[in-house]
């Protein structure tokens, strides 16, 4: 979600709440003989407010499970998640008087800080990366389908090369007779197609198959341009269209790789954010219950 003008109301409301909470805390801390304490009336109020913010932020996951329920717009939930989740940190710090306390509360504080920090990191990524992806990955596809698309690209590339050079398992041999592709390439001398066959089998196919040892050159757009330009000089003009097709497939493969990388950045932080949030809520409940006792 981009943090744009539509967040202004949330930003202002959050700043007002933060300002009021800070003012209250300063007065409270200055007037408390034993210093600020989570067990005092004001400390408890901060704790409850912070916990409610965390619970609301946590409910976003539940809200996503029931997208068809009329529970408000998803964007509103997301904005609430962002701003209330962010607000929960100062409120909880005010609750604890900026002390980490004992073992459980220390764990809670660390969890909260990591969750909020990862959330801020995620929000920044979500703000800056989508436009970048639109620009740099025009062939973006569904992340879960990338492997399937890659397989299709490999098959497509195999088909293109087979059409030009014959069956891939006999690259140096003459093209198989009878097939349409072999007819199309039958007029081209075998020696002419040899550089293409060699390039494909040695460099491009391993690249498409994600064999890491072979990916360095073609995964770099500039180097790839040079490789394909060199290949064109070795091949007759009739095969240049084939080279262009292979070049396009390589570019698409590079974009898919980039998409995977971006996706890991864009969603990888959730590996930390979500599990720790759940642990935080669970331990927070235990803290609240035991705080009633002590």
């Amino acid at each position, binding site marked *: 979600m981009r943090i744009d003008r539509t967040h202004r109301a949330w930003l202002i409301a959050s700043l007002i709440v933060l300002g009021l909470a800070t003012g209250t805390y300063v007065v409270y801390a200055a007037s408390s003989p034993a210093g600020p304490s989570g067990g005092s009336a004001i400390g408890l109020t901060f704790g409850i407010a912070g916990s409610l913010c965390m619970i609301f932020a946590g409910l976003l996951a539940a809200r996503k499970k029931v997208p068809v329920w009329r529970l408000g717009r998803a964007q509103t939930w997301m904005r609430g998640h962002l701003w209330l989740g962010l607000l929960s940190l100062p409120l909880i710090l005010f609750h604890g008087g900026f002390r980490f306390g*004992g073992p459980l509360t220390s764990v809670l504080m660390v969890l909260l800080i990591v969750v909020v920090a990862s959330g801020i990191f995620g929000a920044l990524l979500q703000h800056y990366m989508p436009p970048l992806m639109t620009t740099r990955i025009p062939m973006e596809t*569904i992340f*879960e389908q990338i492997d399937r698309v890659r397989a299709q690209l490999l098959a497509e590339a195999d088909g293109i090369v087979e059409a030009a050079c014959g069956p891939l398992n006999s690259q140096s041999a003459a093209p198989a007779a009878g097939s349409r592709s072999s007819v*199309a390439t039958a007029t081209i001398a075998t020696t002419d197609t040899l550089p293409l066959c060699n390039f494909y089998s040695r460099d491009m196919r391993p690249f498409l198959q994600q064999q890491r040892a072979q990916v360095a050159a073609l995964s770099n757009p500039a180097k790839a341009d040079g490789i394909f330009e060199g290949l064109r000089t070795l091949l007759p003009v009739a095969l240049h269209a084939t080279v262009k097709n292979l070049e396009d497939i390589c570019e698409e493969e590079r974009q898919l790789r980039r998409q995977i990388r971006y996706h890991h950045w864009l969603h990888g932080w959730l590996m930390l954010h*979500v599990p720790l949030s759940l642990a935080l809520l*669970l331990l927070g409940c235990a803290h609240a219950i035991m705080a009633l006792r002590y």
Partner: protein
Amino acid sequence: MARAKLTTKNLAQRIDLEYFKHSHPFRRLRFILSVTLPALALLWLVGYALARNDRIYSGGRMSASHAVLTARCNACHVEQAGIFGAKASDQGCGSCHNAPLHHANQIFTPTCAACHAEHRGHPRLAVTADVSCTQCHANLHTSGAATHFTSGITRFVGGHPEFAASRPGSVDPGTIKLNHAIHLKHNLRGPNGPVQLDCDDCHRTAKPESRWRFGSSTTQVEPVVQNAIPPSMDPERAYMSPVTYAKHCALCHGLQFDARFQEGVPHDTPEVIHAFLVQKFQQYIPNHPADLHATAPNRNLPQQPIPPAVRVLTEQQWVTLRVAESEELMWRKTCAQCHALTFAANAPLPIVAKSNITQRWFQHAVFNHDTHKLLKCVECHSGATTSQETADVLLPGIATCEKCHRGGRGAAESRCFECHTYHDWKQEKRVKGMFTLSASLRNN
């Protein structure tokens, strides 16, 4: 073979429309982590619960003096209303401590925990915030008659009145005639020649014990160290010992009363001195009968009969005469040099004013000379070198203290607790211990 044109339709056809029904490893890993981490957290809680150990719910590290109770929550958190009522209460504190009230007329009594914040890891619980005191003393009201204490104290630096003893018009109530300036002069006449007195020739704390330069011989006992305790724990290092004649004055200010005797009169009341003189002369004269032949001074007074050149006195007459002479010397010169004596009509002996030497100036605050021993005395008691009157109060004013005790980093402590105590420890009652070592150390 030409590549198919990449239209939206073509691209869409690449996608398996059922893809969302299959879990992707990325999502699967997130799910596993989302289950595992909370489960681990739950296990942590359950583990401690099964061990019946509530330590993880502690609000923080205990203070040094309560560290032994770290695993014994119920020592302070006394259950009052079932499982959800175990707040730390004054009742819990009272099982070990008897902390008397601050003042009988106070209108507000805070709970123990309101001032002594536990679970903060403080080395000393007595270290309290100023607001503990200023919540009342910033605008002091009492339940009884109007208080004579300053009612608007907000902090030490800039919010504390001048010390009562150092306010304008304050005088030392002592009656001993002492001129500090003369006593600190160079080449003062000492018992064995010129001396230069130093402050600690008269003003010292009780510990460490050491010989006094100008005490009488009977007070010059070599100090013996017994039950030595660390200086920081020794209350006898805090205040100056009272100045006494025997320890501080005797060697220079002798009480000789007659050339026939080496010893002086006891430093005591006129009655005791009188009895001493009578006894001394009565013991003397039987052994020295020649002294009964009194030779009159060679003087002719107008309209007075010429006395015989030599008179023979009875022992009683002689004693009376000598006692009268000695007392005259004492009352008019020796004693009067330091003491204020009044002579009532028809009274045979003078009345000596009580010395009224103030033993402790700050009745509502504590001070420790030992911790300030790195300073020269006159750094704080600057008036001592020039003071000529007993009435001069030579205590430092608050401004002197504020030079160091100004708060903030790099300065000495300036919070209320540094000088004041809340509890009136004179009222403290004995508390019987309730814990056993084995129980206290269990679970630690």
